[in-house]
Every structure is written in structure tokens, then in C-alpha cells.
């Protein structure tokens, strides 16, 4: 017999009220933990995808769309820009790196990205098999693409026009897989990489039979979709976007600014969920309070008897506090488990949608705060019942029966 087993015994003796309190606390804590895990992982993942990219340059349109399509490959591109713009950018003294990407096709829902080797190097990728693409129509599969499609080195596939996986197949120009990337925990896991020339090639083939003059015209009109830019100096942040945006056909968007804007928009929903979780936790505290307080009446003889058996008032106080705390701890732990389970379920769903993967097996230091808040709620909720127990007039109670 000890304080924990004694208080747990009293909690078991009131299964309905105990379950209600546990449930409210678990739902509240679980919601907060789910938010922590999902938002935290999305933020860190988006941060990782955008690391080292200070500016995305593309066709005019929505800057957020430009970021979403150029960095995260989660939206349709805003359009194309002339290939000549890449050269101009690379020569700009504010630019350290300028990585051009050619977008627009997909395979089984995975984006096909035409990019040079510097794109792979930017993300520090390694190959789990094969090598980087060199010749046109060679492709490298991201980790997740290879794992999900089961296609490996030597496999052949045809891209589809468009990014929804529903466009016309470019069956006349199939790709050959020459490499598979190791897991990179970045957007590259979900991409099919090829050379920019391959993307041009596919689309030029698509135009049907042409004479040499047409081909030359097309070569002169070659375009890319976006250019990922890394600044050469802090001064570039002040100068470069203005320079680019003043050109009629180009637009520059800052990933830091646009993702912050995105999170501000999504943030309202997250705040609402957080407030809802807080209400649940307050309700749980009230439930703990009411459970302990109403039970005092039927327990007053138990408490008096405990005094006759040698318990001091302080120990009765401690017993009631322990009940509140045991309840809060159990509810919070249940909530943590629930939060991780929900995050894992959400992660499985997102993965099936070829979206950002979210894991339920990640732990965050903030979860300890959730635990601390839950214990605090349990403590506060049991203070008044504990005080009443402390004040039990043992002699008078026993004299009554």
C-alpha cells in the first residue's frame, strides 16, 4: 500500500467519473500533441526543402504559387521564362547560385523535374543505386518514388503531360531509369529527376514532325520554368528582387516571406484547434474537480477512519492531491499516445496523397510542456477538495455515525 496505489484505488472505485476526466484530458492533450507534431514536422520539412534558396525566379503570377511549385512541387507552375534569363541571372553579381528547373510533366503523380546536377548537389543527395543522369531521356528516381512504384535502375517509363497524372502520355519519348536516390528527407524523395534537355526533347517530339528550320526556331525559344537563386551577399536581398521584378516577364518570390505568409493563413485554423484543445483541458480540470469534490461526501467516513489509523491531515491533503495528479498524469500520457497515433494516421494518409510525410514516431520537447500543464491542471483541480479533506473534523464525523 502506498499513496499511488491508494489514490488509484479510489479512482477505480468511480469508473465513470474517472473515465470522463481521463477522456477529456486525453482529447485535449492529444489535439495539442498532434498539432505540435504535424505543424512542427511540416515547418522543419519545409525549412529543409527551402534551405539555401533565397529567391525563386519564374513567370509572373502568384508569388506563393511560384514558391509552392518551384521549391515544394506542390502546385502548378506559373508559366515558363526564357532560357536567356538563366544566363543573365548567373552572371548577376548578387547571385552565388542559380539553379534552373524545367517542370510540367509527371509520372504516376510524381513530378518530373528537369535539372542539372547542381540541383542534386544543392540537397546533398546520395545514390542508393545507379548514377546521375547524363544523356537525355535518362532519369533518376527519388527514394519514395522508387519505393512506391517498385521501379529500379534499368526500368523504363513514359511521363505524362501535366502534374495531375491525367495528362497525355509522352509515350513516344520514354525515360530510362539510371539511378535511384538514397533517402534524403527532402522534397527530392518525391521527385523524378532528369536533365533539362530531356524535358525540352519530350516537348519538341510532342510537336510532331518538323523540318530543320522549325527545330532551330524551337531551340531559340527554349524555356525553363523556375530558377532557384542563392544570394551572394546580404545586400542581394535588398537589390535583386527589385531588379528582377522590374523586368516585365519575370517575377521573384522569397521562400521565407511566402512560407511565413502561408503559415499565417493556415495559422488561424491551427490557433482555433489549439483554443479548442485548451477548452477541453479546462473542461478536464473541472471534471477532475467535480469528481473529487462530490466524492468527498461519501468519503468523509473513510477520511475520518484514516485519521484514526494515524494519518495526519496533511496526508489526507496529499491523498486528494495525488488522486488529481494520478488522473492528470494518466490522462496526459493517454493524450500523448493519442497525439502520436493521430499524427501517424495523418502521416499515412498524407503519404497516400503523395504529400509531405508526417511521422508519429517523432518526439518533441514541447510534449513535456503538455505533460506539465496537464499535471498543473490536476493539481489546481484537486486543491479545494484536498483542503476540505485536510479540514475533516474527525471527531465530529465519527460521532455522527
Amino acid at each position, binding site marked *: 500500500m502506498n499513496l499511488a496505489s*491508494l489514490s488509484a484505488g*479510489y479512482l477505480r472505485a468511480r469508473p465513470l467519473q474517472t473515465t470522463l476526466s481521463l477522456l477529456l484530458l486525453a482529447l485535449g492533450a492529444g489535439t495539442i500533441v498532434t498539432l505540435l507534431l504535424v505543424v512542427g514536422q511540416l515547418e522543419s520539412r519545409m525549412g529543409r526543402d527551402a534551405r539555401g534558396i533565397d529567391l525563386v525566379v519564374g513567370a509572373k503570377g502568384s508569388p506563393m504559387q511560384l514558391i509552392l511549385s518551384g521549391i515544394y512541387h506542390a502546385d502548378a507552375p506559373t508559366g515558363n521564362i526564357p532560357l536567356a534569363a538563366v544566363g543573365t541571372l548567373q552572371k548577376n553579381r548578387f547571385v552565388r547560385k542559380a539553379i534552373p528547373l524545367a517542370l510540367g510533366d509527371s509520372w504516376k503523380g510524381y513530378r518530373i523535374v528537369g535539372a542539372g546536377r547542381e540541383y542534386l548537389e544543392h540537397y546533398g543527395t546520395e545514390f542508393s543505386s545507379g548514377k546521375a543522369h547524363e544523356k537525355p531521356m535518362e532519369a533518376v528516381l527519388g527514394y519514395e518514388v522508387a519505393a512506391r512504384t517498385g521501379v529500379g535502375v534499368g526500368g523504363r517509363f513514359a511521363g505524362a503531360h501535366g502534374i495531375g497524372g491525367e495528362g497525355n502520355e509522352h509515350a513516344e519519348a520514354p525515360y530510362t531509369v539510371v539511378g535511384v536516390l538514397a533517402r534524403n528527407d527532402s522534397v527530392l524523395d518525391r521527385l523524378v529527376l532528369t536533365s533539362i534537355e530531356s524535358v525540352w526533347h519530350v516537348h519538341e517530339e510532342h510537336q510532331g514532325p518538323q523540318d530543320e528550320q522549325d527545330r532551330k526556331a524551337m531551340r531559340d525559344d527554349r524555356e525553363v520554368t523556375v530558377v532557384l537563386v542563392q544570394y551572394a551577399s546580404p545586400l542581394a536581398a535588398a537589390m535583386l528582387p527589385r531588379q528582377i521584378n522590374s523586368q516585365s516577364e519575370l517575377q521573384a518570390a522569397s521562400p521565407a516571406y511566402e512560407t511565413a505568409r502561408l503559415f499565417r493563413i493556415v495559422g488561424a485554423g491551427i490557433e482555433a484547434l489549439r483554443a479548442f484543445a485548451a477548452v477541453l483541458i479546462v473542461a478536464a480540470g473541472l471534471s477532475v474537480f467535480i469528481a473529487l469534490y462530490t466524492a468527498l461526501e461519501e468519503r468523509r*467516513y*473513510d477520511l475520518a477512519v484514516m485519521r484514526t489509523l494515524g494519518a495526519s491531515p496533511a496526508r489526507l491533503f496529499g491523498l486528494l492531491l495525488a488522486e488529481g495528479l494520478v488522473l492528470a498524469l494518466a490522462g496526459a500520457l493517454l493524450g500523448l499516445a493519442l497525439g502520436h497515433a493521430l499524427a501517424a494516421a495523418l502521416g499515412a494518409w498524407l503519404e497516400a496523397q503523395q504529400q509531405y510525410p508526417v511521422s508519429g514516431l517523432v518526439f518533441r520537447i514541447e510534449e513535456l510542456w503538455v505533460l506539465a500543464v496537464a499535471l498543473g491542471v490536476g493539481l489546481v483541480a484537486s486543491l479545494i477538495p484536498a483542503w476540505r479533506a485536510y479540514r475533516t473534523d474527525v471527531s465530529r464525523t*465519527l460521532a455522527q455515525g
Partner: protein
Amino acid sequence: MIAVRNLAHSYDGSRALALAQWEAAAGSRWLVLGPSGCGKTTLLHILAGLIRPAAGEVSVFQTDLLSLKGSRLDQWRGNNVGIVLQALHLVPHLSVRDNLRLAQYLARAPQHDAAVDEALGALGVADKAARRPHQLSQGEQQRVAVARAVVNRPKLLLADEPTASLDDAAAARAVELLIGAAERRQATLVVATHDSRVKRYFSNTLQL
């Protein structure tokens, strides 16, 4: 021994107890008699250190109860006094064994299951150890309550109206249980009652 002098206590201004002098030798058996409201329960509660008398001196086995304060008085009670209440008040959701373990835990006594089993065995309810109080008969509950009162080997065993609402045979058994338990532990037994049926078991009586 127990020594009481010039004891007086009152509740809300009305006198509840007045006792000029009383002494009880260690190991003796006492019956405190008197009509309802004469202060029998008050005297037991004072002897147990549950209430502090308004005036007087109380010494129980060389311990001046008025000098013990707060949790030290509670600790003393847990180690030295066993109390059997009229309504028994076993903790309902704890098993019989856990009710006795509770007494050990709250008295901060070592938790020996051997002592629990011995106390239950001596009162003939060893086979009921795993039961809940409500699964027992009234007589069995009484035995468990006595076992709980003596599990910490108290020097003083107090019982408040142990025979009220019992028939003659049950009343006799209840008193015999208390006397037997007190004798095995060489404890001083003080029984407060208005029930004159139990007089013959006691050589010493205190009339209030």
C-alpha cells in the same frame, strides 16, 4: 497506565464531559457506561488524541497527550491506539487485506503481510482476506474491524458502542472478540457503551 485528571470538554458552549479523576492500569479492561450524550465518545476521542480537551491532563502510557502536537499526535495514535467504531467503517473498495495494510501504511508501520495474516487468522477471517467488506456478513465485518484495530499491536484498544443494534448472541460474540484480541496483545481495553448486557465481561466500570 492511563491517567486522567480534571478533564472537561464542551462543544459549542454546552458541557460534553467532566471527569475529575480516572486511572486505568496497563492491560486492564474497562467499561465506560452512561446514557447517550454523557461524553463516552468524547472521552474515547480524547484518549485517542482525536480531540484536545478544553481542560485537564491526559497521560496514556507515560505520554502526555496535550504535549503532542499535529502529525506527531497522529503518528502516536497510529502506533499506540486501535479503534473499533460502532459503524465499523471498513474502506469499501479495498479488500479485507488492503484494509489492514492501510492501517500499517497510515501508521507508517512496516508493511508485513505476515502481521496482516496473523491478525486475520487470530480473528478467524483469514479466508476472507481477498474479499471486499460488502461481501462479508456483519459478524465477519466486525472481526475484520477488530483485526484492523490490532494489526499494529496497539497498547490501547478502544471500542465505541460495539454491541449497539446487535442481538444478545452477537453482542456477546463482539465483546468476546474485543477481549480476546486485547488479551492476545496485552492491550488495555476501554469500551464505551450504554448497553448493560455486556457488564458481566468487565471487572472495571467507569460511570459517566
